[in-house]
């Protein structure tokens, strides 16, 4: 694991403009999840949702390196993955609210979002299903554009048998896959350590897939690890694996108060909040606090407008008339 000092130093962020954009995107994801939570409480969200709050550095760090030709398979905790790729937040919100203007016409809800024009081939409700989808996508990409397929998945997925079949298949065929394990410490309600033997990273290494464990709360650490992994993959050397250590701030789904977590654990992780960490680093490297405040206000205002527009948007007029093509 690359050790990151919490003391901000100068010269860590290679491109302040880029990281300021990432800061904005992380704020958008956090605010979006707060908004979804608030609307869920009012009964406006159709179906369950799994919020990404706390894990923002992973999706934004990886997405900042992706190209037009790449493809992404997200998990059911996928709002952050979608927003990091540039999916229109209004259309994503409308999807949660079951509106015709949703990114999938209000039919997919939270767990099944896809946005092909934004490189998101799907959000997968089956634990580890994203790995299989990315494997298939990589098979196609290898023969066509040469892009990389990214699979996000959680620590729980690493105990699914077919994950190893996919990993083996990818390595044997040298498929262009970046595997990003978001280890947030819990598979649903079960602590990671009570169901998982050994290190996650070593499960990839046993197939000679290069793997790295990284501080998932530090977006520049995630980006650094993803950059090394993508260089390997884009070089035609087959898959690479990144394990990001992170934490989800809320329960598994909206039915879960997360009461099984030890007292103080959440607060401890929040002291290393990815947004706070990045902001501290940006300020240490000379970005004006007032500018960052402005971004925060703009994002808040944007989300407030989204809430109003989303609630005013029409529902699908006829539920079964839409044809799905391609």
């Amino acid at each position, binding site marked *: 694991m690359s050790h990151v000092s919490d003391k901000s130093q100068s010269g860590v962020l290679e491109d302040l403009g880029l990281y300021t954009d990432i800061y904005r995107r992380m704020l958008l994801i956090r605010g979006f999840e707060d908004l979804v939570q608030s609307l869920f409480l009012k009964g406006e969200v159709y179906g*369950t949702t799994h919020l990404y709050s706390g894990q923002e550095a992973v999706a934004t760090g990886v997405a900042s390196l992706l190209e037009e030709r790449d493809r992404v398979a997200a998990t059911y905790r996928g709002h952050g993955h979608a927003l990091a790729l540039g999916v229109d937040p209004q259309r994503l919100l409308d999807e949660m609210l079951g509106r015709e203007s949703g990114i999938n016409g209000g039919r997919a809800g939270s767990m099944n979002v896809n946005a092909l024009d934004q490189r998101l081939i799907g959000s997968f409700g089956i634990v580890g299903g994203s790995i299989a989808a990315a494997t298939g996508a990589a098979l196609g990409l290898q023969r066509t554009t040469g892009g990389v397929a990214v699979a996000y998945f959680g620590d729980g997925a690493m105990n699914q048998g077919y994950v190893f079949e996919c990993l083996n298949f990818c390595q044997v065929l040298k498929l262009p896959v970046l595997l990003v394990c978001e280890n947030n410490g819990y598979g649903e309600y079960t602590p990671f350590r009570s169901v998982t033997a050994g290190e996650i990273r070593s499960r990839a290494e046993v197939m000679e897939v290069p793997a790295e464990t990284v501080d998932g709360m530090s977006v520049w650490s995630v980006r650094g690890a993803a950059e090394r992994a993508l260089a390997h993959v884009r070089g035609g050397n087959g898959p690479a694996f990144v394990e990001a250590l992170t934490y989800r701030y809320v329960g598994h789904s909206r039915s879960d108060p997360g009461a099984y977590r030890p007292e103080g654990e959440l607060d401890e992780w929040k002291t290393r909040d990815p947004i706070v960490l990045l902001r501290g680093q940006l300020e240490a490297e000379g970005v004006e606090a007032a500018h960052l405040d402005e971004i925060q206000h703009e994002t808040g205002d944007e989300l407030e407008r989204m809430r109003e527009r989303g*609630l005013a948007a*029409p529902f699908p*007029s006829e539920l079964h008339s839409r044809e799905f093509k391609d």
Partner: protein
Amino acid sequence: MAQQLTMPKLSDSMAEAAIVRWLVSPGDTFERGQGLVEVETDKATVVYEAEAAGTLDSILVPEGGSAAIGEPIATLANGSENGSEARPTPKAAASAQPRPAPAVTERRPVDGAPRERPNATPVARRSAVELGVSLHGIAGTGPGGRITREDVEHAAAAAGEPVSSPAAAGKGAVETIELTTTQATIARRMVESATTIPVFSVSADVDLSLIAALRAGAREEGVDVPSINDFVVMAAARTLRELPRFNSSYVEGKVECYARVNVGVAVATDDALLVPVVFDADRRPLDEIAAETRRLADAARSRSLQPADLRDATFTVSNLGMFGISSFTAIIDPPQVAILAVGGLRGELMTVTLTCDHRVVYGTDGARFLSRLRELLERPLVLIGGGR
């Protein structure tokens, strides 16, 4: 107008939930993220945290009460620093019974053409189904012309007015009475019971002459005399222990039998029916059962029952004997498997009727239950002496 705090949706599948505990009191200010109330959903007990800072004005649904998603559970003071004398008198927090939420809105008509699928809130849709009104043609007053619950209620009220409803004219003026939250809960559970449980009933006459003699003797001694119903509760609990299939629930094609025998005792109050629970009734002596049922009945009438007093019954005894009813059948309180309806004394005979879930028990089981219950009531020394 005061803002309202409504019942939040705290699980994927909840339709309504119970208030376990208020963490703030009327007059308290709170910060964003501070826990306001503990809510028991269908999945877990969850603390609902404030989405914004504010001041609690009054509690509309006290501890032990329940409300559907979107129904008001409290009012908020809008940042005004009024003294407590300026506020409406807060409802007693110790009261265990929910009160009807006040209807507070006035109608603001808005032009809106009916859509293909009416734009309405989920709560409004549910209300429309419950009230039997069509969403089509209702002008929504919410954002973007969205139909709110209030709009539906107004529409339902308008439909109920004699002038607009020829059907009502023949029945004279119509007074619409809102159900309290408890009454609405009872209504929903009774429909669930009647539509999902295939039932049969068996009856038997029990000779109470020995119990009557015991009670008469005790009364002459001037001691607290257990009621006939206390004997019935005890005998039912003993029978449940011996016939555990009655102490169970039908759950998704399986029968869950419970280790504890908790007998609910139906208590009529002014506006509802409550069923507080005598826990472990099979292991308690008669005087303890008598004391506990008296406490629970008093608490039910004074509305001071706690949520824990109303949960986890595995069987119910309902007694209308004091009203001179000879016999009746009761509706099962799901997910219980049976309910015992107790009639009044005719001479020395009392008729008991057991209504059973036929998915779990059959006619001969019902007969066995009642015959054992009768044995215990007709041999009170076996019942009282062997109770522990």
